[in-house]
């Protein structure tokens, strides 16, 4: 069966809608910033352990935030990164972000269908994607293509259907008469990811849960504007940036003004049930550190049901 034309269209619409509403000032909101901090923790650890130097994100996306941000951490730590995607708009947006971050020399942007990659076999050390796997009822052609162009690792990271934010987000789509463009519930589970990877003859190396802050997973709901408005009405400022030259600065005395800086959050925690690893470097944001400490100590059974994301790393 493979990927249907309807699924391709839905993915394209989803990606281009997010590019349209992405915050150009990199103010992505607390949920996305925290998510980036803990996922970047995992990526740093993974990149070091697996000696990843050449990475493909396919299809690349920013989902809730800025397009093309997901793989930046690999580049910050020396890797070359290729972002492939069927949308010109997404790739243009991603290029602007990478230029802004001063890392565009380490990046390549390629327009192509998600399951027809214009790369030779075994080109990349790792091929991965974020919240894209679940958009396909039968992701076998996508995973097969990821495996083909990888010389060793494939990483799949998805939404977690068991998280109770899923229910609220479904209600939000229903009452707003919005198209459900987040994919198939049954694909946002460990068994589905395992099945897809094993179906391509891959060996599962590790699986885990990540991004378990003590607040509801709002998916891609546009709450940031409302929070800014609410806090603005009492003279406070709501601003969250993963990377900012004015990191940690706050001119307003009564501002709840906060910046999380990617480089300031270099925890070596592996982002899953094993908890924080060695070499933890604190974030400039005390709240991020507290929430991350809580996350790393949560029981495994609980993580599975409250994590915003699931992931599995597999080997050829």
């Amino acid at each position: 069966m493979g990927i249907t034309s309807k699924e391709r269209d839905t993915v394209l619409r989803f990606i281009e809608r997010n590019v349209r509403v992405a915050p150009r000032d990199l103010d992505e909101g607390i949920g996305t910033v925290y998510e980036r901090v803990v996922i970047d923790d995992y990526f740093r650890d993974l990149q070091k352990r697996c000696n990843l130097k050449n990475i493909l994100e396919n299809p690349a996306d920013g989902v809730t935030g800025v397009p093309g941000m997901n793989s930046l951490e690999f580049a910050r730590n020396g890797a070359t990164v290729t972002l492939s995607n069927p949308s010109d708009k997404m790739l243009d947006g991603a290029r602007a972000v990478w230029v802004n971050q001063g890392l565009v020399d380490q990046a390549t942007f390629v327009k192509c269908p998600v399951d027809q990659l214009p790369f030779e076999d075994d080109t990349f050390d790792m091929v991965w994607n974020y919240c894209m796997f679940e958009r396909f009822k039968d992701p076998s052609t996508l995973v097969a293509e990821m495996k083909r162009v990888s010389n060793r690792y494939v990483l799949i990271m998805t939404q977690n259907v068991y998280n109770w934010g899923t229910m609220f987000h479904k209600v939000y789509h229903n009452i707003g008469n919005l198209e459900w463009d987040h994919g198939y519930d049954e694909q946002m589970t460990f068994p589905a990811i395992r099945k897809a990877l094993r179906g391509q003859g891959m060996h599962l190396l590790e699986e885990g849960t990540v991004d378990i802050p003590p607040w509801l997973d709002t998916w891609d709901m546009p709450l940031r504007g409302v929070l800014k408005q609410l806090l603005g009405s009492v003279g406070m400022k709501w601003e969250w940036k993963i990377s900012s030259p004015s990191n940690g600065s706050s001119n307003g005395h009564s501002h709840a003004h906060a910046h999380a800086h990617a480089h300031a959050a270099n925890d070596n925690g592996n982002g899953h049930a094993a908890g924080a690893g060695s070499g933890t470097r604190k974030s400039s944001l005390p709240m991020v550190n507290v929430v991350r400490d809580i996350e790393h100590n949560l029981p495994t059974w609980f993580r599975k049901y409250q994590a915003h994301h699931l992931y599995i790393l597999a080997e050829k």
Partner: protein
Amino acid sequence: MALVRKSLALLAWLVIEIPTTLFVVFVMIKVYLEERNSKRRTKRGYNVKRA
């Protein structure tokens, strides 16, 4: 010791999660009402123009 640590983490998580969830639900309702009102205003403006 690990059990105590995990229990405390779980307790802290729940203590923060419950009020933040209530707040997010409130904001969700506010977003929904604003979107609905915005659609109504747009529709009304369109009708006025036509009239």
